[in-house]
């Protein structure tokens, strides 16, 4: 009964009677000790008024200085209206809107005799300073990471693209959470189909609350059950800006320091922002290294198992004798060996995440070395296996994207099982399944396996290799952008001849 009444009341409009309004406020905000109602008399017009706000959601200094101060102390303006020093002021009359505003940290000014209420922007919740993004450090890039306030994040992106074509669409997602979600894109570059698709998907999300960006990505992805991520989540403004310029869309979720980039293709997970600031030859080398690491991380343990259990005839003579000897001491078959070591490594890794960082690093290294040594000496695992597992772990750390790394970790076990069952044939079938998944996936309508299939050789300038920036004057065709040519004229001016 009480609930229903409250619901009804929320839809009502503010009345002119101040006392009645305050009563409604008390009824709407029961059991909310951080809500304050400050009565005052506006000096400028002599009206009675009340300020309603949530204590720690507002910037109290601003409240005191910019609202209370002027309202109570200053003389009015010529037309008899009262003034405050607040930049953003809205007039609202529906209680649900006012309630929302108060929850967001605004201050509501109820004035006796007026049938509108005024919403003054005094947002000031606790937030942290801008820091280096922890998960995506860079050598040469900016050391700014996104924070938990959407407007600040958007501001950081705007710093990279101060251009009129950077458009935003705002949504509110979540029944209880009412999270602000913002879709950013370059209007003259991004494909409007894609933007509209994303728009539709975000609108269709029905959930209580989105706590983190990751949850949102699961709702808007094409294949949420798939192993591989179809959106990139980044904490870096420069990465986000660069993706927007390539024709992709960026989704900023309030209260989360990660933003989503969609649509993406497989190769996008191997690009980092440093690739463009370092020299192109080293950038190319690193890109190739990452691709190699990807495949090594997935297939190496499986390869080891396949060779040692099925096809040891291919081992070269010199290696055969040492390998045979070291395997001879171990009681477990290669698969069990590999499984044990991999699981141990995964546990170490997960443990390292929870521990505070100096201890975590030490534990990781010491743990790895000690365990590796001890286990070999005890004759439980052969030393070749330790090398394989260590190599695999290092390879999986090379990949710049955490979601992809996670996918790799799981894929590895699947391949190990296939190798156990069928040797090389199993590896190949596993590979076929992997490829089959990758090429069948779409990310918001664009092919995941682009630019390999469909074949777009012009995009290859920025995938496995990173050609000198001078040659990269087209946006990736894979993103189906409207505008292909980037606006750089560097190549032309150089050609005109300069000393």
């Amino acid at each position, binding site marked *: 009964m009480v609930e229903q009444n409250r619901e009804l009341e929320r839809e009502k409009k503010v009345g002119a009677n101040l006392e009645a309004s305050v009563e409604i406020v008390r009824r709407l905000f029961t059991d909310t000790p951080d809500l304050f109602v400050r009565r005052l008399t506006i000096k400028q017009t002599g009206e009675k008024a009340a300020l309603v706000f949530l204590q720690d959601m507002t910037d109290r200094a601003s409240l005191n200085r910019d609202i209370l101060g002027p309202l109570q102390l200053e003389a009015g303006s010529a037309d008899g209206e009262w003034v405050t020093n607040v930049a953003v002021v809205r007039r609202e009359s529906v209680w649900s809107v006012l309630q929302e505003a108060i929850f967001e940290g605004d201050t509501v000014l109820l004035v006796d005799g007026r049938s509108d209420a005024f919403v003054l922007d005094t947002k000031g919740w606790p937030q942290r300073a801008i820091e280096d993004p922890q998960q995506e450090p860079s050598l040469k890039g900016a050391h700014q990471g996104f924070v938990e306030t959407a407007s600040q994040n958007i501001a950081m992106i705007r710093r990279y693209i101060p251009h009129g074509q950077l458009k935003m669409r705002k949504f509110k997602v979540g029944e209880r959470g009412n999270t602000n979600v913002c879709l950013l894109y370059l209007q003259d570059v991004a494909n409007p189909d894609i933007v509209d698709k994303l728009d539709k998907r975000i609108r269709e999300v029905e959930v209580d609350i989105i706590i983190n960006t990751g949850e949102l990505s699961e709702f808007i992805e094409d294949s949420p059950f798939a192993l591989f991520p179809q959106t990139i989540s980044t904490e870096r403004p420069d990465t986000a800006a660069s993706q927007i310029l390539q024709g992709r869309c960026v989704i900023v979720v309030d209260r989360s320091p990660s933003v989503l980039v969609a649509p993406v293709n497989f190769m996008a997970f191997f690009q980092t922002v440093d690739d463009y600031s370092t020299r192109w030859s080293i950038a190319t080398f690193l890109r190739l290294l990452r691709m190699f690491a990807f495949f090594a991380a997935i297939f190496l343990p499986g390869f080891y198992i396949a060779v040692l259990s099925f096809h040891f005839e291919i*081992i070269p003579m010199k290696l055969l004798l040492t390998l045979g000897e070291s395997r001879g001491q171990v009681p477990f078959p290669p698969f069990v060996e590999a499984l044990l070591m991999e699981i141990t490594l995964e546990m170490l890794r997960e443990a390292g995440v929870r521990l505070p960082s100096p201890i975590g690093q030490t534990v990781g290294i010491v743990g790895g070395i000690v365990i590796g040594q001890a286990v070999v000496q005890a004759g439980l695992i052969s030393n070749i296996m330790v090398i394989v597992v260590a190599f695999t772990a290092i390879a999986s750390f090379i990949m710049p994207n955490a979601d992809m790394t996670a996918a790799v970790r799981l894929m590895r076990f699947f391949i190990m099982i296939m190798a156990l069952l069928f040797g090389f*044939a199993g590896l*190949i079938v596993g590979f076929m399944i992997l490829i089959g998944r990758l*090429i069948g996936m779409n990310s918001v309508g664009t092919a995941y396996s682009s630019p390999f299939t*469909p074949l777009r050789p012009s995009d290859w300038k920025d995938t496995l290799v990173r050609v000198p920036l001078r040659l990269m004057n087209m946006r990736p065709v894979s993103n189906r952008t409207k505008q292909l040519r980037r606006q750089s004229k560097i190549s032309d001016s150089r050609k005109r001849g300069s000393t």
Partner: protein
Amino acid sequence: MSAAKQPVSTTQFISVITGLQASVVFLALPSNLASAAGTDGWLAIPIGWMVSTVAAVVIVRVMSYYPQGTILDLLQHFAGGWASRLAALMLAFYYFIFAYDGLIITLLVTKEWLLPNTSVFILAVLFLAPGIMIAQKGLQVISRYALIIVIMSIWIPFVYLFTLHDAVWLNLLPMLKEGWGPVFSAVRVMLYPALGLTAVFFIYPHLTNKAAAASAIVIANSLSHGLYLFITFVCFVYFSPNEIDQFMTPVIYIMKSLEFNFIERVEVPFIAFYLLIFSLDSIPSMYFVSFCLKRMINKGSIGVYLGVFCAAVLTVMLVRSPSVGHIDDLNFIMALTGILVEYILPVCLLLFLVIRNKGKKAS
């Protein structure tokens, strides 16, 4: 039509056709040519190429009469439902044998070189699984897959260049030592390797660039035959003409001669890689079979028919356990059906369509 939603680019198209033609065939080709015509067998390849190019162009021309549909739609439009259903039946049968042949060869090669003690049945299930997974996603994904595998296999011919170290080029001389007779009889060996062109019947509506289809299929056919020529040369100069017909799969055997420091028995990882290439034969064929069946019965999704296909394959395998002699029988049936489907049928269709058009213009 759903065809528009699944576009296939030209390079993907080329990959699919080349894949269908070359993927399983290239293993034994040099032996077969040598048995038919000795070291002059390679001359049969250009002849076969010319004949199949003509067939290829005819097929594309036929499809251009009804660009928005597959051959079944074309027949339905021009000749009525019964013709379309008959064709569907024929093509389903043909591609079933195509796929079965490819699968059997894959299985036997795997069993012989990689896993001798595993039952063929289990291997069949193993290889059918990813096949079904990929085939049910439709022609677009199949074509993408073909393209990726082709890109990944580009380096393989270069490895064969290493075997030229021991090459005896004089094996090829003298040319035409017994005259043209044996060469022409060797052309029948080239019939089977050229099969696969009729994939155009199904892919044509999906092509993004239909105008380039004719040149694309010629490119694909030339690629396959170029490949055949290359490996035939390599095998002919390595193996003595007196010994080559003893090897069933000289293309694999020749790998055994390569010695590297870091790996013994080089052919094992190569065979594993070849399994990927072999899949290019069975996966599109699987899809075509299921597609035809689906059109005939008109109910259910492609996945169901793929399941039917697998059941059929496994049943046939249970009844007649695959063996090498089996392959020869299959090749024979395929050659016969192949002549019918890939050569006679398109020519008849073309004549039919041309006459019809002339008739329409006249009236």
